């Protein structure tokens, strides 16, 4: 069992995810170690390439905090993101990486507690899976 | 006379013509041909020999036609444009006529992806209209395609084509048959009829275009073996529509196959009454042994003997 916590890269939509995580921090909810947050103006801004590059450059798991499907401020952004995550998962399967290493977590601005709990569970899950053997960069 | 075939003579002498269909064996077993010829002997004027129908490899229609002649029956050789280019087809026409084959039906053919050689290269050098024109040119102008090469001697064929009154677009189907008439077709066999109303509408369009005066139309008829067959065809076969009333009739009958024969005979009698219809083409798929009974019940026997 590695002493270092699994590295999680969390893309956070500024309309929901960023605010939810601020809330989590200010209410002192427990968050996993080794967490990197990447704010984006809309989850639809995330290109499939970013998801793969995040894993390639050292993440053990990637999560996307996106608004609920009907709630996208830019109308279809999170729908597009969903398709891209689907495509990325197909690539992960080809590479031989587990599908759990990439997940969308839909939420709202006040989901501080929920998103913190989700991140803790994800960290445990990734710990059990072991490190991402596809990463080409060191920590 | 175009080729002097028995089928041609039957038409020219004003008789109602009868043809059937024979599928060659999926190997080189000639006894299969013999068995089918024996089922048909005496009941028809000529028999269509299919050309790798549904793109499933069978003995060639030209070889099978020759065996049929040897067995004492007149073939109508089918030729599709799917598998052969113009060199091969003109070459086969020299061979076919030299071997005594006098009738040809020119078709495009079912797409090869339906058959058992899905990775074959699709030829389609010509379409059916162009093939009809090619055969007519060889016969009447005695030149090969391109018009340069003169042909010594006669390449005489009685030329047939197909028509589907039940395909789309309906308004165009009769016009397409008119195109085949303009290209030089002598007779047309239609896809099998269940929707008599639509067939009659199509025949009216044919008459309005004057096509019935130029070509002999033969109505296609296929006897239904069972309710299951009727339902399957209605659902799965492109270009065939079966009215619900017919399916119900089959379903309610005590014996489906007997009802199917009755319906078939009624259909033959009905199309005989339609102006412009000069014969029937009975396609009894895998049921060739019923041709005798059908033609007898429909009052089509004996077949005329013309010298």
């Amino acid at each position: 069992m590695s002493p270092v916590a699994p590295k999680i890269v969390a893309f956070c939509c500024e309309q929901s995810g960023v605010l939810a995580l601020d809330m989590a921090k200010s209410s002192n909810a427990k968050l996993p170690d080794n967490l990197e947050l990447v704010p984006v103006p809309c989850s639809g801004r995330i290109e499939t390439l970013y998801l793969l590059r995040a894993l390639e450059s050292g993440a053990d798991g990637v999560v996307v905090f996106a608004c609920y499907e009907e709630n996208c401020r830019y109308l279809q952004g999170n729908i597009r993101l969903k398709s891209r995550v689907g495509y990325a998962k197909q690539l992960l399967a080809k590479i031989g990486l587990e599908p759990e290493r990439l997940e969308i977590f839909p939420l709202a601005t006040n989901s501080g507690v929920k998103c913190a709990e989700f991140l803790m569970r994800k960290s445990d899950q990734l710990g059990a899976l072991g490190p991402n053997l596809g990463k080409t960069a060191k920590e | 006379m175009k080729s002097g075939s028995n089928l041609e003579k039957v038409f020219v002498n004003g008789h109602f013509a009868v043809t059937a269909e024979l599928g060659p064996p999926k190997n080189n077993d000639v006894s299969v041909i013999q068995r089918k010829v024996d089922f048909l002997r005496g009941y028809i004027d000529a028999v269509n020999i299919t050309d790798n129908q549904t793109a499933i490899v069978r003995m060639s229609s030209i070889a099978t036609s020759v065996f049929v002649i040897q067995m004492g029956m007149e073939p109508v050789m089918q030729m599709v444009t799917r598998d052969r280019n113009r060199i091969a087809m003109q070459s086969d026409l020299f061979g076919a006529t030299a071997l005594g084959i006098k009738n040809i039906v020119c078709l495009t053919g079912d797409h090869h992806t339906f058959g058992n050689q899905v990775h074959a290269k699709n030829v389609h050098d010509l379409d059916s209209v162009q093939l009809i024109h090619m055969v007519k040119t060889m016969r009447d102008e005695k030149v090969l395609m391109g018009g340069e090469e003169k042909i010594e001697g006669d390449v005489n064929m009685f030329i047939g084509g197909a028509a589907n009154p039940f395909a789309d677009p309906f308004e165009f189907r009769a016009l397409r048959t008119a195109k085949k008439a303009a290209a030089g077709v002598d007779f047309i066999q239609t896809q099998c009829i269940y929707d008599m109303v639509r067939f009659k509408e199509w025949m009216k369009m044919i008459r309005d275009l004057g096509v019935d005066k130029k070509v002999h139309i033969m109505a296609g008829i296929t006897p239904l073996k069972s309710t299951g067959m009727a339902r399957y065809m209605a659902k799965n076969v492109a270009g065939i529509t079966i009215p619900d009333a017919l399916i119900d009739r089959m379903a309610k009958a005590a014996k489906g196959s007997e009802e199917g024969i009755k319906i078939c005979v009624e259909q033959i009698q009905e199309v005989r009454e339609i102006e412009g219809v000069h014969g029937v083409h009975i396609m009894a798929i895998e049921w060739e042994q019923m041709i005798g009974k059908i033609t007898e019940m429909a009052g089509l026997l004996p077949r005329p003997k013309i010298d």
Partner: protein
Amino acid sequence: MIKAEQKPFEEILEYLAPYDKILLSGCGACVTVCHAGGEKDAALLASALRMARQKMGKPLEILESTPARQCEPEFAEELSETIGQVQAVLSVSCGVGVQTLARRYTATQIYPGVNTTFLGETVAHGVWEERCQACGNCILEKTAGVCPIARCAKQLLNGPCGGSANGKCEIKRETDCAWQLIYDRSKSLGQLHRLTEIIPAKQWGTQSRDSGPRRIAREDLKV
């Protein structure tokens, strides 16, 4: 434009098995439009390949470069320095680009990363359909702007065949029957009468691939 699809990942991995440093070259033209081999598609493929090889314990270094077009010698030349540094090239351009590189870089194996499929139209975002077969003798004027060589499964010039039902082709129910389209458009153009004229057999020999690979030479443009 030319349409293509990326080859299966497993097939590409097999091509690259003997190497540890390659160039993945994309193309900024046709394959960008159909998302098969543009700069982003190449980058995505490169990332996936690196991770797969890392996981296999056989790291693969992949240099990436995407010229504006790969089908012209000047653009192929741009890659010369990079190609000098690698053992092989995986090109996700169409077959033309692969061959242009192969002709220039005779000592380096150039692998095709896509299957070039057809000449087509972007019908909707992410959807492309075949429209042209480059037969060399365009008859679109006769067929109301719908090509029966590319769009009819039997390449009929006097269609439709008996398998046309409800405007669809008998071999694939999602495929429009080209001759139904020709009929409809002829009707809207007031040109239905033209469809009664017989279109004679096509001259496959003089202008199409059937007489061998083709060439155009414009003397007025040569320097």
